[in-house]
């Protein structure tokens, strides 16, 4: 049993590492590849949970994660990026070093919080939830520190990866909810894509700083 938890923690830890890699990457193509790696790791983690905890319905979640977020969405985003001609360097609000340090602080925060909140529970559940919360917070951070709309979408998706990880760890979320969450994310992606194209048509760029002009803020 403990071996099972160790492997699931290893996979969750690998997801946390890919979250940091997302913050570290400088090119959009690399960001998309890292995101695909994170989603595939998520699919593995969910599949491991399904087989080790004997919950076959989780295999469907795993399959959705693998197909949609591991393959379809990264490929679609990659095509968008190629079509927009922006696969150069990513503009960032703050430097990589600061982003990574803030990420570390957030991870520490997630763990300190979970230790306080989930004091009575078993240590493995605590660790799983702490890792998932850290991934969610890092997704937030990614949306904050990137100026480019596509990388913000990736940040949103990686946040959602963290949510699914938390849901599989907490043995609760029914399959219907999971499927609907997965599809709502897909729809959100379409909305994002439409927005990205509209922003680009209007401002000739997808750097969201350009929106400040629209709002009247000048820098």
């Amino acid at each position, binding site marked *: 049993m403990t071996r099972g938890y160790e*492997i699931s923690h*290893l996979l969750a830890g690998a997801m*946390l590492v890919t979250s*940091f890699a997302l913050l570290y990457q400088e090119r959009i193509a690399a960001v998309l590849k890292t995101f695909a790696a994170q989603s595939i790791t998520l699919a593995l983690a969910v599949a491991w949970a399904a087989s080790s905890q004997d919950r076959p319905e989780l295999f469907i979640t795993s399959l959705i994660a693998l197909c949609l977020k591991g393959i379809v969405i990264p490929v679609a985003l990659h095509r968008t990026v190629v079509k927009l001609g922006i696969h150069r360097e990513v503009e960032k609000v703050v430097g*990589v070093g600061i982003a990574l340090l803030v990420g*570390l602080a957030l991870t*520490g925060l997630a*763990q*300190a919080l979970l*230790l306080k909140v989930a004091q009575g529970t078993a240590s493995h559940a605590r660790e799983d939830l702490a890792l998932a919360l850290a991934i969610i917070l890092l997704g937030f951070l990614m949306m904050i520190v990137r100026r480019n709309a596509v990388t913000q979408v990736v940040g949103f998706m990686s946040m959602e990866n963290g949510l699914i990880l938390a849901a599989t760890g907490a043995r609760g979320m029914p399959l219907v909810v999971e499927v609907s969450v997965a599809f709502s994310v897909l729809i959100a992606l379409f909305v994002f894509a439409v927005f990205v194209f509209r922003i680009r048509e209007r401002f000739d760029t997808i750097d969201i700083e350009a929106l400040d002009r629209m709002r009247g803020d000048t820098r």
Partner: protein
Amino acid sequence: MTGDLVVQFLAQGAQMFLVLLIAPLAVGVVRRVKARLMRRRGAPLLQGYRDLAKLLRKESIVADSASWLFRAAPSLIFALTWVAAALVPSFASGLMFNWAADVVALVALLGAARALLALAGMDVGTSFGGIGSSREMMIATLAEPAMMLIVLTLAIAAGTTRLAGVADFFIAEPLAVRVSLALSLVALIIVALAENARIPVDNPVTHLELTMVHEAMILEYSGRHLALIEAASYLKLVLYLSLLICLFAPFGMAPATAGVSGWIVGLLVWSAKLLAGAALLGVWEVSIAKMRVFRLPGFLGVAFVFGFLAILLAFLTRGVIQ
């Protein structure tokens, strides 16, 4: 009882000379693997020994502006590195001086050697030496905190900073797949690459002034001084390989109570693991490119981040944060 003591003493001495003997061979393996993968024939495996012998025979030329520090530094660097390399448990964990093989002491010994090397690089007053020293210190300031974090993670897991104790702990607890250990392994590999001036950080075979770090500092050395410094750098490679083996793959290491036969088995296993590690390093070096100097803080920052994450997770598993 005294006979036992003599055997223990001999085993410790054997380890000291073993690392010295095997070091040029390990470097030879790395070079050979690289050459073969680039479809070159490569230098013979024993080239390291020949280089050292040749340098020892040659006259040592010292610049007019050199101070005593320039002459003293090679011997001191060699001595410090040798002591450090001899302390890392190789084939057996319970040798005579294993109480001294503390990771913190190891870091201190290597830090002292590096400080001497940087001072010697600046001593003659050439511009290359200064550049090399400044870059070396930049790398050191980034790599050393990461190294200390890794050390602390292992100390939390095993309850001791003694290398032999950590190795014993991991032998006793097989397949401890923990996230924090996986992270500290990656961090330690990055630190080892940086400290040994291997490829993404520094290229040991070029003398291109834009990129060189280690070579720039020792440019003014020749003859036996250079031989000592080269031998120290070979030893450092073996030290880090042994450290990685001892901390993350200690299987097959002879326990403290093993007699001579146990030591011989441990010795064979250790040599095989060391040569495998050297071959892997060669493959790694062929498959990636050297980084620009200005990207190094990012690369070493990754080691720091991983070390920090490892220690956070180690605390979390044990529930120590209040």
